């Protein structure tokens, strides 16, 4: 099924990330993102977006990574379901810190830290 295919791309993407092959991981997550959108599956859509963000971060492409991590926040907003947001705020802050935008990094870390105590 399409759902099966989606899960499989997410899994392969994760393995590529673990094995330090972020370019290959990016392609897997990209396919997964399209499948998740078609299937209207917001939870898997967020996982794909997070994976894309992480793949770009590993390649040093921080500005592009921010786009995908922000996509997690947008999906949460759209679906009124905020799983994955804490991680996204933290990851966006990490990216801003890497490119030297400490102001924005601090802002996102503050939101991240305020959420650490929640479930």
């Amino acid at each position, binding site marked *: 099924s399409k759902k099966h295919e989606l899960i499989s791309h997410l899994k392969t993407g994760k393995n590529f990330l673990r094995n330090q092959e972020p370019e290959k991981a990016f392609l897997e997550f990209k396919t997964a993102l399209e499948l998740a959108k078609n299937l209207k599956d917001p939870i898997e859509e967020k996982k794909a977006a997070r994976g894309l963000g992480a793949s770009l971060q590993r390649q040093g492409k921080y500005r592009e990574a921010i786009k995908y991590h922000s996509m997690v926040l947008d999906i949460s907003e759209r679906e009124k379901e905020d799983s994955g947001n804490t991680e996204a705020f933290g990851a966006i*802050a990490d990216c801003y810190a890497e490119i030297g935008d400490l102001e924005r990094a601090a802002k996102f*870390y503050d939101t991240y830290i305020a959420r*650490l*105590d929640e479930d």
Partner: protein
Amino acid sequence: LATVPTIKKLRAYAERIRAAELEKCLSKMGDDIPKKTRRAVDDLSRGIVNKLLHGPLQHLRCDGSDSRTLNDTLENMHALNRMFNLEA
């Protein structure tokens, strides 16, 4: 703003520990881990890390939302750098 690098490094440090322990856990659980279990275990690992980091990271916040002075915040930062070996 001065505390940003410490926050980033402490997050990365904790994430390395989380990922390594999670990996060990999953490999012990064998193949065919039910999705529900997989997710519960992932939440567990994030929950423990997040709640343990909450205290220290709150003391590095830079939004001036309370009466702590910049000096206190910097002292907290140095202590964390030292205790988690974050300057290496």
